[in-house]
């Protein structure tokens, strides 16, 4: 993790993102010196409470927010000055942001059209992707007729269509109800694994993070607190703040606020200790 110059995948170094900065005011700091590596084919979850800067970091990686300092590199190439549309990173929003003036098929085909993929090949790929997300035959449907879960599936297919070298998912399941969320989390993981896509998955729900990700990066107040595989994180939280956020009541910290979380997490910890 030290010298990421030649590693394959994403390398973020000392990234700082500020909002509302002018010549006189420095503005507020959303991301405060974050370094993070995502290896090729790996899925990393960015986990943290709302307002901790995880979405800002994601938008900076996508090229939608300027970095105040630090670097973002992919496969060793510094991306400073490379505009959003040349990065070949996919982005999935919380509410899908499907194009209302295009039907399902033409939404998924959008990225392929910009790449100039021939019509027949485009149609075949759209059909295959829709089948992958469980919506085979939906090409002609208007996006207005879709349910929330279907919209997110279409958005996922659309983001995967141009074969992005990195997929960024910004709380893609948060707007859905709990049962659907749990099922879709598994579907998303399977889709990412099947396509071998490198991905960063932003969420505030640790169950979701643990379901989807190979490694989980816990973020708070603009800084990364700990980056580890789910089981390591649960066994050995780096400090009390991480433990608190994961709902692990530290032995000497009386009473975590959310008791139900504390219970599931306690169960998880005990199995962790048994291992």
């Amino acid at each position, binding site marked *: 993790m030290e010298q990421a110059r030649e590693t394959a995948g994403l390398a973020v170094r000392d990234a700082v993102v500020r909002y509302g900065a*002018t010549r006189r005011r420095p503005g507020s700091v959303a991301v405060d010196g974050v370094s993070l590596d995502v290896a090729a084919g790996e899925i990393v979850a960015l986990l943290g409470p709302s307002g901790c800067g995880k979405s800002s970091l994601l938008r900076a990686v*996508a*090229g*939608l*927010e*300027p*970095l105040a300092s630090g670097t973002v590199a992919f496969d060793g190439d*510094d991306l*400073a*000055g*490379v*505009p*959003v*549309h*040349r*990065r*070949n*990173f*996919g*982005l999935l*929003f919380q509410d899908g*942001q499907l*194009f*209302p*003036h295009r039907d399902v098929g033409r939404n998924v085909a*959008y*990225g392929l059209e*910009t*790449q100039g993929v021939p019509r027949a090949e485009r149609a075949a790929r759209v059909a295959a992707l829709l089948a992958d997300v469980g919506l085979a035959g939906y090409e002609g449907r208007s996006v207005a007729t879709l349910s929330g879960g279907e919209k997110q599936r279409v958005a996922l297919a*659309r*983001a995967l*269509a*141009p074969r*992005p070298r990195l997929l*960024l998912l910004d709380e893609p399941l948060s707007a859905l109800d709990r049962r659907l969320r749990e099922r879709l989390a598994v579907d998303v993981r399977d889709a990412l694994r099947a396509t071998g896509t490198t991905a960063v998955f932003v969420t505030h729900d640790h169950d979701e993070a643990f379901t989807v990700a190979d490694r989980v990066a816990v973020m708070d107040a603009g800084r990364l607190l700990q980056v580890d595989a789910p089981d390591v994180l649960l066994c050995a939280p780096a400090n009390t703040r991480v433990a608190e956020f994961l709902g692990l009541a530290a032995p000497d910290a009386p009473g975590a606020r959310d008791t139900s979380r504390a219970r599931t997490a306690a169960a998880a910890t005990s199995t962790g200790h048994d291992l």
Partner: protein
Amino acid sequence: MDGHGRRLRRPTTPRWGAWLGWGAAVALPLGFLAVFFAWPVVSLVLQGFFAETPTGRELDLSGFAEVLSQDRTWRIVGQTLAQALTGTVLSVLLGLPGAYVLYRCRFPGRTLVRGLVTVPFVLPSVVVGVAFRALFAPGGVLGWAGLEESFAGIVLALVFFNYAVVVRTVGGMWERLDPRAEQAARALGATPWRAFRTVTLPALGPAIASAAAVVFLFCATAFGVVLVLGGLRYGTIETEIWTRTTQFLDLRSAAVLSVLQLVVVGAALLVSSRARARRERALHLTSDRVSAHRLRLRDGADLAPALVTLVVVAGLLVLPMAGLVTRSLRAPDGSWGLDNYVALGTTGGRNALTVTVWEALGNSLRTAAWAALIAVVVGGLVALVVSRRPRRAGLRHAVGALDAAFMLPLGVSAVTVGFGFLITLDRPLGLDVDLRTSGALVPIAQAVVAIPLVVRTMLPVLRAIDPRLREAAATLGAAPGRVLRTVDGPLGTRSLGLAIGFAFAVSLGEFGATSFLARPDTATLPVVIYRLIGRPGAENYGMALAASVVLALLTATVMMVAERLRGDRPGGEF
């Protein structure tokens, strides 16, 4: 403007393209506004401050002293303010029940009534003048009321015009107001009237203020309708400028009056922009759901507004239009028939006109098409630029200033614009081409008047596009130009239809500037109508009525078609 990475280590050519593109999108409208609005108006205003002396131009404020010391000036200013204030108050008082009935209640035929209410707003002012004159004239339906050339008559015509502004602006907000706030007040023991007064009315406040400011603006700068109805006794600053220029050839005092009007209008514009900002903020508080209930005539809370609306729609809106149509079917000899319409193929009694009315209609359609084209190109570019939210504060302020600059033509009177064209564009930019004889000035002047409406129609639609939709397109590999073409384009064109229709209808009926600029052989329909009612003879008057009906039908049809293209969406000012 797309703002990523200030530290360009790898400057790429498309960025230059983007800057060039946006630069052109700003420069073209600004250049148009400078040459065809700012320059003529400023030159005109300066006429009031300077006097030609043998040694050259000198600062001379005696023109102000002279004009401001005349009783006639203050009588006109007083009449302008009195007419505008009364017209505004009446429009709001009558418009509120209308907004409730047409936007908060459901009943069969509601869409039709909504369309009917909108028609007067786009009717050419000359047509409205002629319609009310026919109503008030001896032998007209209201001939017994003695409203001919009266203050009350003018105010009624102004309300006829602006009723729709209040109903649509307030109604558009009212239908999206969450009814549960009022229900909560009722549950806390408030009577229906008290709940309305303490909960609903304050929530509607910004929309009412915004509508009132716009109505005041339209009333204070009313021209055609006052010119036709006011006779010699009543006028506005606007008609006075016209009279002094064309009748007395007194350019200097006309210029002074233009300055005076700018002061009145500037104040109204300031209030209106404040109110608009508050309304845009308040719109965020409303829900997307439309909440309307079935009209309950047994309930007094529904019955009273329904009755008021019925009286207004039938008495104030339908009666003058029906009267105009009926009267136009009356031949000069008193019999019923299409004689007046047949006469439209002639140049009027004793050759009142240089062209036939049908030729004038052709002129109107041609100039309006050009004007709509210019207005939509220029106004569309402005709306596109103003809809952006640049990251840098300086650029953001610049965008705001651009927005404000293109609202100015709404406030500066059309007469001032037309008059300014006359005194400046004989040698535009020092070039030796006299635009005044080229015939190009009429569509340009009409476009200047229509541009603010185009911007106000397209801007809310473009602003409503979620910026993340553009971001999604960019992450899918679309370059900025492609995002514009595939996201803003298809979503924005839905407002384009309405904008074109609006610009076309406004240009068709434009009278203030056109009356200055159109030459006899290129006269448009409103100019011809005004000339016909100014000439003696029942034949000419009958032709004016028939031509008014034709013009009214045309504008109303254009607007109805454009309305259909708009669909049912919030936003839009008028």
